[in-house]
């Protein structure tokens, strides 16, 4: 169909002004498409980084032991009920086998167990209430990204190492290499050496948490071999609710998605994504309408030529091909031009984790550039199909005689 391609090409460039204008219009729509994708994606990433960047996507815990059912007895009344969670005390035993099961889900990216308890950091006569977090060596930064926020020392934990926030360390008046005491709520004590200081910008973490090695934590909290929670990060964080259901169904354990505790954020991200989709759909509709109307005019203007071509042996599908191809070429050219424009315009924006307040969080990598070019080419081809079809079905006699 080389010959058909030549005809299509020649027709396109017989009125260069109109064609360039058309391509520019398509390029503008594609630019909007890419810009919207990049902005919505970047905004979502920024929000997620800021709010749940250091949270698990799904937290897996032992189910709460069923509470005894209170039966109403005649003549008696229940005045008060107190529910006591048993899982905080017991935790999960044999975490390794649970982890093995969880690893079978291919959506799961990272698995990190954690043992949690309460305690006090003591340095001379200064004390600070902290939550004690036992982390497995090698998985320190799997959920909370210590590695991105280290101020001094290292994020790796071993033996008597202690990882705390810079602010907490300042409060206690210590630095890396110094020794202090951690006393658990039930009275056990251990001596630890500060091995790393971080600053994550989250006060709960920076001021009220102590991170120690898992084995040390289990000994201190008197729960050998147990963990409180297995934290999971997924490849797609929006899959968390569904994954949580599947994990619960498969293991019987309690699985809580991040969305349960951050429902508003989840809804906001969804609404934002929908807005973006609507804008993108409109951008594509613009492309389709533009290309269809331009080709409608072209086929009308070339009626007599189409009739002549048919008289001299051009089959219907040749005519169809010539005009559909014009649509595809416009779509492809406009798509590529729009992509180049978008890359040029969006490249100067800083990466999401370096966005300053007041700057647009635009993430070019989320611009769906390939998709934009593909959809545009497809859309323009489809748009061309209708006028091309009617061109191929022209009655040659009518067309020639006009």
């Amino acid at each position, binding site marked *: 169909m*080389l*010959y058909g391609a030549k005809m299509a090409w020649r027709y396109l460039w017989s009125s260069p002004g109109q064609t360039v204008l058309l391509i520019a219009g398509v390029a503008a729509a594609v630019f909007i498409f890419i810009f919207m994708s990049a902005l919505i994606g970047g905004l979502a990433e920024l929000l997620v980084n800021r709010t749940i960047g250091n949270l698990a996507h799904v937290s897996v815990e032992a189910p709460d032991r069923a509470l005894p059912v209170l039966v109403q007895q005649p003549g008696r009344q229940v005045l008060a009920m107190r529910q006591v969670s048993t899982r905080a005390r017991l935790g999960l035993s044999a975490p390794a086998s649970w982890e093995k099961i969880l690893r079978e889900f291919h959506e799961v990216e990272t698995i990190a167990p954690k043992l949690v308890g309460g305690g006090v950091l003591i340095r001379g006569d200064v004390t600070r209430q902290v939550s004690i977090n036992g982390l497995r060596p090698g998985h320190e930064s799997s959920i909370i990204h210590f590695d991105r926020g280290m101020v001094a020392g290292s994020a790796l934990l071993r033996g008597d190492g202690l990882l705390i926030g810079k602010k907490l360390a300042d409060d206690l008046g210590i630095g890396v290499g110094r020794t202090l005491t951690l006393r658990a709520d039930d009275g056990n004590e251990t001596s630890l050496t500060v091995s790393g200081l971080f600053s994550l910008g989250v006060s709960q973490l920076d001021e009220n948490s102590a991170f120690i090695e898992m084995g040390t934590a289990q000994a201190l909290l008197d729960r050998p071999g147990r963990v409180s929670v297995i934290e999971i990060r997924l490849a797609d964080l929006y899959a968390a609710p569904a994954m949580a259901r599947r994990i619960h169904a498969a293991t019987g354990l309690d699985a809580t998605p991040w969305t349960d505790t951050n429902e508003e954020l989840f809804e906001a991200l969804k609404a934002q994504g929908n807005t973006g989709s609507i804008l993108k759909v409109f951008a594509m509709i613009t492309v389709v309408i533009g290309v269809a109307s331009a080709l409608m005019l072209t086929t009308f203007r070339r009626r007599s030529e189409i*009739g002549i*071509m048919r008289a*001299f042996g051009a*089959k*219907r599908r*040749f005519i169809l091909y010539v005009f559909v191809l014009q649509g595809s070429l416009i779509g492809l050219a406009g798509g590529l031009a729009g992509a180049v424009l978008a890359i040029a315009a969006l490249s100067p924006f800083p990466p999401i984790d370096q966005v300053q307040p007041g700057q647009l969080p635009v993430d070019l990598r989320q611009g769906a550039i390939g998709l934009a070019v593909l959809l545009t080419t497809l859309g323009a081809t489809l748009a061309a199909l209708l006028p091309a079809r009617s061109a191929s079905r022209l009655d040659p*006699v009518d067309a*020639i005689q006009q």
Partner: protein
Amino acid sequence: MSQNHDQLLVVTDVHKVFGSEETATHVLKGISFTLYRGEMVALIGASGSGKSTLLNILGTLARPSAGQVMMLGKDLTDADDETLTDFRNHHIGFVFQFHHLLPEFTALENVVFPTAVREGRERTTAKERGTALLTLVGLDDRLHYRATQLSGGQKQRVAIARALMNQPELVLADEPTGNLDRASALQVMELLADINAESQTTFLISTHDDQIAARCSRQIVIQDGVIDA
């Protein structure tokens, strides 16, 4: 059968009705005639007598309301669009009153079209034949002129070259000189007569110009929807 061998086109009782019911116009009312190979025939008739209608039917661009058209022993009356398109491409050439060249294409590209559209590309052999044909019609110095850069007479000569490109057995010319001044018109007729004399190509030329008709070997007159012998 030997006399059949010389028959190119056999038209039997062809009718054409436009519209339906009350508005129906019965333009052709039983046309029958035969064209033989190598003939150059004039189709004469008043304006509105149905010359163009008949030529379109013979050229397989339109279908008769009734009757039969046989060309080269093939019944074309009920063939499908694809078959007819192929048949036209191989066996029939057209020259229209308003030349109808493809404006963005050069003279040579226009001439080569019937072969190129069949082969899917413009082969060198096709271009060579196209060049030879344009030389034959006296336009060897205008090969690469765009159609829009040619005069009326020149365009019509390009159209003639294009009609001959695929060496058709039949060329249908609908008032090929109707749009030209007398000198150019006679030139074009001269050319058609020469080509007819040198090749076995059959020409059916519609006209209402007696002088043009006189250049042909035979005349078919159409009047009131039938052939007037």
